[in-house]
């Protein structure tokens, strides 16, 4: 039986009728038309479905919507602020850190979560923090460079 969930997504509350066992990914995509999170594997192995929950990168394909509660969900659609790209989004563009782009939303949100935890991450911290995200086009080194660049621009912004 569908339950009612008040989901806090990208700064606003969305009331959704859905069985508690349904994945957050399917609710985002099918009920709320937030299709920036993608299905890639359905078992939390590729990271294409990654969203932030209370700032934590989370695999929405294996997260039941009933477990979300009042946690603040941020999807790729919620990252841009007043027409300005998030520093990580901008860094991905600048570094050409994508090819087909299907993994990109999940990569960017995982990177945002990583930078929250490690504002100036080492190479090893980036690799271990991002290793659950697959880019089959193989742009990994570009993504590492983009994360370093985003870190620098966030640091610069913080000093202002």
């Amino acid at each position: 039986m569908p339950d009612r969930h008040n989901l806090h997504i990208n700064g606003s509350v969305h009331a959704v009728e859905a069985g508690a066992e349904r994945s957050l990914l399917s609710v985002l995509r099918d009920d709320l038309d937030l299709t920036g999170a993608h299905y890639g594997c359905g078992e939390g192995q590729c990271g294409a479905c990654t969203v932030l929950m209370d700032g934590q990168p989370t695999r929405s394909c294996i997260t039941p919507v009933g477990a979300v509660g009042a946690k603040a969900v941020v999807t790729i659609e919620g990252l841009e602020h007043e027409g300005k790209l998030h520093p990580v989004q901008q860094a991905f563009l600048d570094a050409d850190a994508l090819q087909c782009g299907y993994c990109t939303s999940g990569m960017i949100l995982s990177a945002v979560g990583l930078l929250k935890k490690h504002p100036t991450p080492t190479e090893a911290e980036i690799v271990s923090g991002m290793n659950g995200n697959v880019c089959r086009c193989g742009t990994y080194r570009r993504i590492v460079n983009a994360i370093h660049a985003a870190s620098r621009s966030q640091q610069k912004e913080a000093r202002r």
Partner: protein
Amino acid sequence: MSRRPLTEEQETQAEEGRSVPLSPTAVNSRLVPETTALPSRRDLLKTVGAGLLLLVALPEAEAQESGGGGRRRPDSASQSIGAWIHIAADGAVTVYSGKVEVGQNARTSLAQAVAEELRVPVGAVQMVLGDTDLTPYDMGTFGSRTTPTMIPQLRKAGAAAREILIDLAAAQWQVERSALTAGGGKISHAATKRTLTYGELVKGQKLTQTIPADVALTPTAQWRVMGVSTPKADGRDFVTGKHTYTTDVKRPGMLTGKILRPAAFHATLKSLDAQAVKALPGVTVVQDGDFVGVIAPTAHEATRALAALKAEWNTVSQPSDQTLYEQLRPGSKAGKTAERTEADPAGHTIEATYTVAYIAHTPLEPRAAVAEWKDEKLTVWTGTQRPFGVRGDLAAAFKLPESSVRVIVPDTGSGYGGKHTAEVAIEAARLARAAGKPVKLVWTREEEFTWAYFRPAGVLTVKATAQTDGTLTHWEFDNYNSGPSGIRAPYAVPQQRADFHRTQAPLREGSYRGLAATANHFARESHIDDMARAVKIDPLAFRLKNLQELRLRAVLETAAARFGWDKRRPLPGHGYGLACGTEKNSYVACCVEVTVDRVSGKVQVTRIVAAFECGAIVNPLHLQNQVEGSLVMGLGGALFEAIRFDQGKILNPHLSAYRVPRFADVPPIEIILVDRKDLPSEGAGETPIVAIAPAIRNALLDATGQFLYTLPLAPNGLKT
């Protein structure tokens, strides 16, 4: 399920491609517009005629290639047209090409080609790709053909358009055309400081021109847009989640479908109990022989309905991967089979057998399609590298004329040669016809791993002889099953023979990035290292001694110099390897460093240096990215990717069981692009993949002394 080995067509196929949803305004809209509002291709010729429409006529040879010998051809009016380009009264430049975008950035490079010749900024060119109603026929986006064939066609179109615009201005101003220049989207007359924009020039005109084949192109040395790093077209849409992949397409009233898959390959349906499903509200079960699907309002309801179907299958006994190479070539066993040295007057001779496993493309966006029937016309949105091929397959499946089928390819979540076929489009269309409503079908990862096709496995045997001074004198090479691409050794060997042998293959096979060139280079470049060892000559020096092909020598020497090949020092647990190769008129060399942990056996590639040359570079940024991506993909097939199967089932159809390269697998990569402005631009999506596997193999040999003859080389590490 097809058991056939690679066809000739498949052998010419590989990887590329992008497309726009229906119209420029629809790019960011998930709810794509009504198909009935769109012109058919013939109508387009009439309706976009206001302004300037140029049809790019193909030279005879390319028309053959685009048409595909013996295949069903599209309507004759368009079969010799490779692309068209339109300049509207408001100055908008729209280019229509049947190529698709799958991440290789064809959308960017093709726009660069037109912008260069038309003298407009690259951002002023809108590309409409991969839409069978809007774009001219194209055989498909594969074989690294977009750059060498479509770019010259579009350059000719752009150049011809520019010349016509100059003619128009000259007529209007009554001046010599030689006094006029084109630039910034305008024609200018310097003497009188007059200008007319392209829009002003074509306003009120209704010009349709076919481009003469001999139109002059801008010399490479004068390029301003081509040859320059240009950012990804629509890049912002990809980092903001706005881009609409096939999986994101939504149509009014759309339902979701799921297909009941057989228990194994070649299984037939024994019985189906759909009682429990028929009771579910809003769910329809579709059965037509062994084809069984469910349709439901939402994906989760469709998934639940599918799980509630009770089916029994008749299965047949099928072989396993444990006996794969025995099946492909009886008696095969990977390893050295003979070695004769020193005392042999013929020289040093080594015979060895190499094996290559099945691997899967694993595009991150699985196969998907949205099908919609309206007034006996079928429209399918699907991520394919062959929109016109899929249209033909849909027309055949539903006994429709091709003019009643439209295939639209949204820019797709990659392909790597894996998205050539029409299954998902046909399945979605069957369900949509039964439902009387649009239906979306997205394959699960497990379906993608099971019901797509694989890069062919292979057995390769090599017998070679070298003199003590390192001169190769004899080369015999046989490839069983994996394919003939890149089979010819580029080394100057007086006696050389290389043959491909078709065999009965246990799994369904098809195109893959680089095709068999990866397998053939693996066996050849591994064997070359072993020959060098036998005659005690450095592997770089051994190659150079036998290599006369200048372009290949150049990349090999470039990569080795940057790597510091001659300065490398032995370190415990470290190894260095190199390999080189050529295919599809481009050239690659790779040097790698590996470490092997003596305790755990863990293998790590710690450094890659690659040099690549594909003629005059169109977009250095995207070329660099493409080469990097090829190396990373090649690293997976080199070290650990392998499809396991038994009794008609794939045993590892999940990303948790089929290992693809991840961040931790990828070392710093240094790429040197050799820009040959004096040579035509060639494709680059495939060839950079061919040398990485043997380079790693040779580095592992250097590190451990172990001769490896199988791909993947070390799926579980390497115990020393």
